[in-house]
């Protein structure tokens, strides 16, 4: 693997609440190259919080600490809000789970996508429009001129997700964090969206962090997978080896998932071992 894009060592996210401090991410370490890295885990395992921490999006009073968190040599831990604004959207960006809640309902699709472009690339109006239309075409929207003028509520789920991806990619970031980008979509649409992401990773040499709870999708789409449990990265393996993982939690998740290929009379349930949290 070439020089890593992102180096994370000993990442901790602490979220103070009424009943004390929740350690949402505990001592997480990994590196990311120009590859597709999957992060899987059940709800509450800290995968989304980790994604947000990488973008400096953990809201106060949440605290992010780490031994190292650097992106192409930039120390992310020392970034001011101004530095973050220059990085986010331009160099690293994040596709959120639900296009219905993450798009601005009162702005047309074209203007929302264009905003990112104008802000980061300082393009004029004509150039912005040209790039927006090209981007909409790149995410395989059939009639970009029409969709440009639509409002988010006029889009289907799959189209909304493509618009989100277009918006996140227009400034040509090197690293994209996609948080459950296909979970709200039908399976046939899901694969179209994955194909778009896949092409972009390959053609632009982007790094992709793909957060998902769906083992089938992650094992078929990603190169490498991190498995999170209780805020920790408990296991790491090549995506194609997920079926034969060694960690008991990973094995349990695989065995609990109904499969078309390996029918089971009864699904295995996950027995949790407090040792995993040590």
């Amino acid at each position, binding site marked *: 693997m070439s020089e890593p894009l992102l180096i994370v060592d000993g990442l901790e996210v602490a979220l103070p609440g009424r009943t004390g401090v929740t350690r949402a991410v505990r001592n997480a370490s990994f590196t990311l190259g120009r590859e597709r890295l999957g992060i899987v885990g059940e709800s509450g395992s800290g995968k989304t919080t980790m994604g947000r921490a990488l973008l400096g999006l953990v809201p106060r009073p949440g605290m992010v600490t780490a031994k190292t968190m650097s992106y192409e040599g930039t120390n992310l831990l020392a970034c001011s809000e101004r530095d973050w604004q220059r990085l986010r959207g331009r160099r690293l960006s994040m596709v959120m789970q639900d296009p219905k809640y993450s798009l601005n309902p009162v702005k047309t699709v074209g203007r929302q996508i264009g905003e990112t472009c104008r802000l980061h690339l300082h393009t004029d109006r004509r150039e912005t429009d040209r790039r927006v239309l090209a981007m909409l075409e790149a995410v395989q929207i059939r009639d970009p001129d029409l969709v440009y003028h639509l409002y988010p509520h006029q889009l289907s789920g799959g189209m909304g997700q493509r618009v989100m991806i277009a918006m996140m990619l227009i400034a040509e970031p090197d690293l994209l964090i996609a948080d459950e980008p296909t979970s709200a979509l039908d399976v046939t649409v899901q694969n179209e969206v994955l*194909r778009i992401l896949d092409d972009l990773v390959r053609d632009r040499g982007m790094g992709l962090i793909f957060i998902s709870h769906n083992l089938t999708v992650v094992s078929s789409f990603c190169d490498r997978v991190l498995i999170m449990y209780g805020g920790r990265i408990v296991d790491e393996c090549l995506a194609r080896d997920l079926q034969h993982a060694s960690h008991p939690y990973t094995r349990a998740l695989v065995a609990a998932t109904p499969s078309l*290929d390996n029918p089971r009379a009864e699904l295995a349930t996950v027995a949790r071992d407090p040792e995993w949290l040590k």
Partner: protein
Amino acid sequence: MITVGGLSVTFRSGRGQFRAVDDVSFEVAAGETFGIVGESGSGKSTILKAIAGLVPSTSAVLEVDGRPAAQRRSKADRRMLQFVFQDPYASLHPRQTVDDILREPLEIHGVAGADEKVQKAIADVGLLPTHRFRYPHQLSGGQRQRVAIARALILSPPILLLDEPTSALDVSVQAEILNLIDRLRRSYSLTSILVSHDLAVVAHLCDRIAIMRQGRLVEIITADALRTGAVTAGYTRELIAASRGFTRAVA
């Protein structure tokens, strides 16, 4: 046990009408678990609602337990069919305890011996007696879905209608709930219809599966055919391929 012939459901809105279910026919034998799969908007949930009499429908035949199901259901009709909904967060009353939730159907139908029935239902779905006086917000998603299943089963209905019962749950919890459904349907010889968008879930529990697309029934296949891919319709093949995960085109 359930016969559906030429079932159609049409929703009227301001601008016109939308045919959510279009001329669908199938039969479910006593004790069978019948699956319905399809993508969003395919009409799969609407079929369940039509069978339960929750939406107005037209059909040539709609029989439950050998008797025609009227558009307006009597109490006895309603007792035959019980529903488990997708979202355990939305389908339980937030201000009712588990005890209230389970007691309500018994009161509506004037069933005696509520106390023992509630206790038994709680034990049946693998909850503890201590859960009985909790509110839904004090329970996890899986526990809530257990309460919803207990509520459906407390009237001992012969038929259970399951609308995406595990879609909102983590895989480990999904496994527990699917195992629970499997155990209960055997011990009570339930006839059930399971609606899901997840082919693997449906293949796990059902013997025969209807594939729906845009309100129409594409075909009815066996779980084995679903696993081996021995299907006739192109759409079914496409759906199975997509469910097996992402395939990278060979460059």
